[in-house]
């Protein structure tokens, strides 16, 4: 028992020391000290950053950098564990947007707006929404944008051509128009009585388009649960409309059937991210080269701008628990990877990581056509989208809210609950859990 009590007291003291120490020390800018840093990533950023190391080492000969890669899920689990344990963190950590809010909430990572980082001077070079995603408050930026994922829809050109609908005009259409088109593009090709070509793979894609394209998502500006907001309702209703009219195939993303849909071209319109192109080209549907195009999303209602969403993206962060000199060196790497055009282009080429640094978009490769997409000037469209994605309200409990709302959506789509019940139950559940 005494042993246990001793341990408890020790922990308490250690904790206190940790809290106090992080408050007081201010790291100095990097001054050519000899230091070695670990950069923790997940695939395929390991390929990208390993490619950056030679140039980085030449510029900073006294920094020895090593890239350490773990599976996407494992990497984040590990990060959560070491942050919670207060020890063992890498010097630079890639954080996927899905985890940024919960990891950033408690001060486990350095506020990059403060000295010696002074990241604020780069703010103008990044999309506002991206900057906002990593800001827990206007005066705190806990991670630096490195790559983005503009959301777009993947069009199976032959189907659209067959019914003489122009996918280039989607950006000027509304959801009503999309729905009407959807009815046309859902059909039975081989005449066996069963529909085998659908507009979209899963109705949740419709929901995501509408839900993710507004600043307010699960929580309002003040952090209160807002699952009964009008836009949420609208998103639910539209998803249901597509489901009821048989326009979606009810096939989950990343399942074998989903890949089959791309291989066989049975989905006419699939909302996803810019990065899907690489996958389609390399392994999902290489034989359909030239048959797919991308397009913007429609607007929700007449007179509005097209909906713009972000589907992914990563950040680089510096854990607060590492020694000061490591923090300084880590910042040098982050600057190198995120604010040097050359680095951003290399990451794009090697790992399909779309540059977050806007000046990188001036590179001529963004004016080229993408071969897999039949030569379409997709990169220009992605840049357009990236510029127009709205800032969103970020909350540490976003992933909890997402689970609750998605469950409600599935219940509603399956017909197990009415719309009012699904939303009010979800709202109540979130409110209860927020208080815990």
């Amino acid at each position, binding site marked *: 028992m005494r042993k246990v009590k001793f341990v408890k007291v020790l922990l308490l003291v250690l904790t206190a020391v940790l809290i106090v120490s992080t408050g007081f020390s201010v790291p100095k800018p990097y001054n050519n000290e000899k230091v070695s840093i670990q950069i923790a990533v997940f695939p395929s950023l390991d390929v990208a950053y390993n490619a950056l190391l030679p140039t980085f080492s030449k510029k900073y000969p006294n920094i020895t950098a090593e890239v350490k890669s773990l599976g996407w899920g494992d990497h984040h689990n590990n990060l959560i564990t070491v942050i919670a344990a207060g020890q063992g963190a890498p010097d630079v950590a890639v954080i996927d947007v899905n985890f940024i809010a919960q990891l950033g909430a408690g001060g486990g990572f350095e506020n990059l707006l403060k000295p010696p980082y002074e990241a604020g001077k780069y703010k103008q070079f990044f999309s506002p929404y991206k900057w906002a995603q990593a800001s827990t408050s206007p005066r705190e930026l806990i991670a630096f944008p490195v790559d983005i994922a503009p959301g777009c829809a993947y069009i199976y050109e032959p189907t659209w051509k067959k019914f003489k609908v122009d996918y280039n005009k989607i950006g000027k259409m509304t959801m009503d128009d999309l729905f009407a088109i959807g009815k046309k593009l859902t059909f039975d090709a081989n005449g066996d009585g069963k529909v085998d070509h659908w507009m979209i793979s899963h109705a949740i894609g419709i929901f995501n388009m509408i839900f993710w394209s507004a600043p307010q998502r699960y929580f309002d500006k003040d952090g209160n649960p807002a699952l009964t907001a009008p836009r949420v309702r609208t998103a639910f209703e539209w998803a249901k409309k597509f489901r009821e009219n048989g326009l979606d195939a009810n096939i989950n993303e990343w399942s074998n059937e989903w890949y089959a849909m791309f291989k066989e071209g049975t989905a006419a319109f699939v909302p996803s991210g810019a990065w899907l192109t690489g996958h389609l080209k*390399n*392994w999902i549907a290489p034989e359909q080269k030239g048959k797919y195009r991308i397009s913007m999303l429609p607007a929700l209602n007449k007179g509005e701008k097209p909906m713009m969403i972000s589907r992914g993206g990563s950040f680089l962060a510096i854990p607060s628990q590492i020694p000061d000199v490591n923090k300084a060196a880590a910042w040098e790497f982050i600057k190198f990877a995120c604010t040097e055009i050359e680095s951003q282009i290399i990451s794009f080429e090697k790992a399909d990581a779309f540059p977050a640094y806007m000046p990188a978009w001036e590179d001529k490769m963004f004016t080229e056509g993408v071969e897999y997409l039949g030569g379409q000037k997709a990169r220009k469209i992605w840049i357009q989208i990236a510029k127009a994605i709205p800032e969103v309200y970020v909350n540490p409990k976003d992933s909890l809210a997402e689970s609750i709302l998605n469950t409600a959506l599935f219940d509603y789509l399956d017909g197990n609950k009415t719309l009012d019940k699904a939303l009010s139950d979800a709202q109540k559940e979130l409110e209860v859990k927020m208080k815990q």
Partner: protein
Amino acid sequence: MAVQTDSKAQARILSLETKGSLKRRTNPIKAMLKIMLLYLPLIIWTLITIYPFWYMIVVSAKSQAQIFTFPPPMSLDSDFFVQFTNNYRSLLSKIPFWQNLWNSIYIACMSTLLSIFFCSLGGYGFAMYNFRGKNIMFSIMIFTLMIPQLIGIIPYFLLMKAFGWLNTARAIYIPGIANAFGIFLMKQYIEASIPIDLVDAARVDGAGEFSIFWKIVFPLITPVIGSFGIMTFLGSWNNFLGPLVIMRSRETYTIPVALNSLRGLQNVDYGAIMVGTVISVFPLVLVFILMSKLIISKMTEGALKG
């Protein structure tokens, strides 16, 4: 002695019976049916179990684009060796595979050998002795089995850091060498198969307690040692959470963590992972054969005893 000869004769009659040579005179069809009936479930089960394993091998020799065809691939293409080599090269370019494989083998071996010793010892203690507090201690031990592991990962990490054991193999295999699972299994088995008279007789002959255990009882429990050995080895091999938080550099990763590090959010290099998995199977098969010999050896001894 007469009894022994009789039972030997009986044994011979029985074995003839089961081999069917006696039955042959009575009902050949029935004997055939009996054998088929016994084999059939085993064969069906074999097919069910082998399928995913075969699939693993097929995928290891396919390029990424070929893996997700529909219907899924079931046979090796003519160029499978080329693809296998491609995937192998991809695997090696991403992780120090052979180093990781060795790490897994080393940890699993240490874990298995030490566990076999300590758990059989502990199980023997609980099975063959009556001592004050025995029931309470045994119950406590069983209770500890029921504590869920997941949340313990953070304090486990802190503890290993405090010991200075981070990034070492020790941190993985030492905590489990005297584990409740093994002791429980050994106790049940020893209780059921070793008569107390054997132990008492040895004591009367002046043998020390430990040598009774090591020289007399341990050789008799080889079947459960073999089974437990396989399970412990496989359990250690598949252990994921521990190495994930303890091992801090690519060179110290074990195979599950290393192979999983090839999984991005969407871009999983399945071919490379499967190559790694397929190659990793060989040490496992080796261990299995070794342990099986232990299990089989008891059989013949048992017949002699009979």
